[in-house]
């Protein structure tokens, strides 16, 4: 379902052209939980932007559900994000001063889903992401880091995307809360068959996935099964 073919990315807006990605190739099937790992500056963020239809590659092709996404316009990319991709970021990226429920409903607004349906699906997503119902009407800036990240996960789930992209989702969380969030991803993958790509620079975080793709200096250097997968069992949480 995801196929990256000879993808390269060159940034030309700096003082000198910078080659962030060089000839990257891989495939990810439906229902996989993959970590993309690399030190900072390795090109993993660039790769994340391309996988998330936030940017297009300079060369090569990127197929998402058999559709070539690499040559689309800005608005066409927005449609792809709306219909096929859910994002979870280190910095959460929620609307402040807006309720949890409204935040989760936002992608559905742009997908022209009716108000009643929006609320129903947002609530289902929030429950799946493990947020207690009492927080649904809170403003997003009134929650703890772990709770906020679960709202972000719920938002990523709500449009029933082909792919969930999580960029350093535990970066702003303490270890315990981070574990809970990673456990949520594992549960979504295991119980609901969600395809998840986790971008991280930490080995311990990457090991929560089934497969790890290593990126270094813009090249794919290793693509292997996670050797000692960390499985989190107690996903029904805790504060």
């Amino acid at each position, binding site marked *: 379902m995801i196929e990256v073919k000879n993808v390269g990315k060159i940034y030309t807006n700096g003082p000198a052209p910078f080659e962030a990605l060089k000839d990257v190739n891989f495939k990810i099937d439906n229902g996989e939980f993959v970590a993309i790992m690399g030190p900072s500056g390795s090109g993993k963020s660039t790769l994340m932007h391309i996988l998330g239809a936030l940017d297009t590659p300079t060369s090569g092709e990127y197929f998402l559900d058999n559709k070539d996404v690499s040559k689309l316009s*800005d608005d066409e990319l927005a449609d792809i*994000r709306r219909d096929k991709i859910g*994002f979870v970021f280190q910095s959460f990226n929620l609307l402040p*001063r807006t309720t949890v429920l409204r935040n989760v409903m936002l992608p559905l607004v*742009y997908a022209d889903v009716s108000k009643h349906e929006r609320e129903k699906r947002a609530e289902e997503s929030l429950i799946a992401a493990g947020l207690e119902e009492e927080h649904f009407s809170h403003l997003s800036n009134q929650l703890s880091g772990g709770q906020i990240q679960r709202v972000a996960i719920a938002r990523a789930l709500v449009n029933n995307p082909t792919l969930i992209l999580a960029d350093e989702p535990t970066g702003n969380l303490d270890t315990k809360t981070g574990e809970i969030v990673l456990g949520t991803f594992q549960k979504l993958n295991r119980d609901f068959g969600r395809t998840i790509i986790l971008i991280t620079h930490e080995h311990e975080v990457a090991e929560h996935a089934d497969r790890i793709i290593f990126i270094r200096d813009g090249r794919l250097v290793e693509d292997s099964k996670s050797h000692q997968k960390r499985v989190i069992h107690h996903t029904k949480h805790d504060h």
Partner: protein
Amino acid sequence: MKANFQTKLKRVSRTGLFNFWRNGTVSLASVLIMMVTLVVIGFILFGSAILNTSLTELRSKVDINVTFIPNAQESDILHIKKSLESLPEVSLVTYVSREQSLEAFKQRHADDQSILAALGELNDNPLGAVLNVKAKDPSQYGSVADYLQGQNILSANNLTIVDHINYYQNKTAIDKLIKIINTAHTLGFAITLAFIALSLLVSFNTVRLTIYMSKEEIGVMRLVGASTTYIQGPFVVVGVIYGLVAGLLTLILFLPITYWLGQTTQNFFIGLNLFSYYLVHFPQIFIIIVGSGVLLGAVSSFLAIRRYLRV
């Protein structure tokens, strides 16, 4: 499940209105800044009205008198009047007969007994008839005077019947006036442009600042797949609301201002009462002020947000 244009417009307007209310303080500040711009535009409107009325009045005050010798035949004078009226530069020629000239002279010097007595000594009317000529533009008096100096106004027995033309006495004053009128026009235009440019810049930057504050929000919208219309739309709506509210407030503000200035302008500027001018021309001023506000708000928002559309 594509939303049709109406649903889209409704949704975009609702979001815009919601954002306008939610960011109350920012909205208030933006509206006030925009009001400054609109007040400047309004004052320029009033200023040019005052200037134009004054200049028109000044222009109409300029004329030349052609005085004929006392024994000129009335038929000859009327013949000249006719030929003057046929000139393209001339807008109006008035004939003042010898008797009327005398009457006017007596009235002007009603307080001066010695002049009246001297006049009584004469058996005859010493004054000649006068043709008062108004040109369409003050700069055209020269050619009218030249025409009169020409030979075509000689009477039958080859004697000129024109006594004198006061253009040559008033030439410097007329030239000076023409110069002042032209300078006032150019200067007024330049000041207008400068003020409008300045206030546009201030308004544009204010709108840009409000959008800058929302750049995270725009990022989130972009992230979850909002199309350009859904992102840009509400901001343009907010810009339009800024302009609309600022425009209406400005129009209301002009009521007491023009009322207060009305009497002053009437006394100083040849009878133009700013308040009645405002009331009479309200429809045009409404369109200009509110229209400028709405256009300014919409265009500023539209341009300012383009920078943040990339994720």
